[in-house]
């Protein structure tokens, strides 16, 4: 049985960073320079947590997790922990999560439109990590 890492733990973060930089090339990321912070509300244990990505020219230069205020980002996506967990596992699509209003996006919607497919690629990689939710 494959070893599982805990969702949003530092081990999970390390795996995310490794996989993103090996499985998604800068070309696939359209040489994007941007940042996004996901804010997970009501995580197990009662705290809020965050996952933060920084991309420079399509390369993931910073992947952070934590339980404080995340760094400033171009986009901030806020929602309940359970919803993000379902999203990562592919149980719910990002479109449904956003269009139902359960996830709240902050940032330029016009720019976000261009990034929607890239976000799905990132999510697929996250979903491939054996994870304990």
């Amino acid at each position: 049985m494959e070893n599982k890492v805990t969702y949003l733990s530092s081990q999970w973060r390390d795996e995310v960073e490794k996989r993103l930089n090996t499985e998604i090339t800068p070309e696939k990321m359209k040489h994007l320079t941007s940042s996004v912070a996901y804010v997970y509300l009501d995580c197990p244990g009662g705290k809020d947590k965050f996952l933060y990505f920084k991309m420079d020219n399509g390369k993931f230069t910073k992947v952070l997790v934590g339980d404080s205020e995340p760094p400033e980002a171009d986009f901030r996506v806020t929602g309940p922990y359970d919803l993000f967990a379902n999203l990562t596992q592919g149980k719910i699509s990002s479109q449904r999560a956003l269009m139902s209003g359960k996830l709240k996006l902050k940032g330029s919607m016009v720019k976000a439109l261009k990034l929607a497919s890239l976000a799905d690629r990132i999510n697929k990689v996250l979903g491939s990590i054996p994870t304990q939710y």
Partner: protein
Amino acid sequence: MPYVLDPTDLYYIDFPGRVSRIQKQMAEEKIDIYLGSRLRTLSWVSDAFCPWRSYVVIPAEGLPTVFSFVIDAARIADESWLDEDHVLGYAPMGGMDQITIISDFIKDLLKGKKGRIGYESGMSNYLAEGNLTHYEYESFRDALSGSELINAHHIVDRLSLIKDQGTINRFRKASRIVDEGHKAVKEAISGGGWKGMTETEIAGIAALAMRKAGSVWEWSFTGGNEIASGYRSGLAGCACTPATTRKLKRGDPLMVDIHAMYKLALGDHAHNYIIGHETKRQRWHADNFISIVSLVLKTYKAGVSPLSIAEEAMAFAEDKGFAEYMLPGFEHGIGMMGDEWRIGMNEGPLPYWTNPDHAYQENEVLICAMQYSCPDEKIGLRYENPILILKDKCEAMSKFGLRVEVIE
């Protein structure tokens, strides 16, 4: 890419200056944020056509930010002087709906404090006015709980009343374009070309010619180019005639009222014909019409008012025996796209209608608009032309000759 403001351009408008003047007025009235929603405000501030429900948030200092439906925001940014960071899209997504995104944006500007927020409310007979709806007002009030919402449309109304040179030049250009449309229509209906032609075809001929000449839209919400033939020209009080598929007939009056838009300035000129053959009675009506239009055009100047013009013109019509055929109003307001109908400020005896005692000032632009209707005789004639108010006279911007022509 937004366009770069070029003060040497004939059509240059000092948009940053406009924003500064709004902000100065906001400061005087202790308004922290101005939330514009009217089409006229969006045009006047952004210099881009915003056909979807849009809003502009003007902070106390710095650049305004336009919010429009996400499918159109990039296009607006491309055509505006504002960059893409100041033209944002809203969408049916969590946090991205228009109430949430704008109220969050305003809260960020207020930095956690409560503020006074100017918004735009009122009423209009013009469909596309764009006042904040009751639902929007309640939603913003709830989302911005603790802040005070104040109706403040008078700020933009006052500042946009007198036209700057770039705006006037844009209006002149739009009128030159309308003249091209009229030339094309006259050419098409002449020499028997009118036979079998419909009102809609005439509207299309004008549209094509004006588009070739640089118009981007037959902007009027009254159906684009308004064409009325035969009895339709003479419907009582009929100053709204979207073109129909009615075919022209010999002896018909034909009213051609066409519209062009150039850099959000609006061309609007109506010209009249009689098809094939005119009766003596039709000529009598036509001469009456020409005489009263000529009089009114000579009367406009700084200092006169809508009421003084109406009184003088109606007295003339009464004296000549045709007052019963005149619609007793001789103008409507005009500005950049979305600014149509009311003249001047909302300060008349009837809320949100033209103040009859409004004293015209130099460099106001309005549409001289006159409607002559005789339903019993199935004839009507219309005059519209943007005019620039000058110290001792007015400048009629469309130069297509004032006459009622018989087309063989």
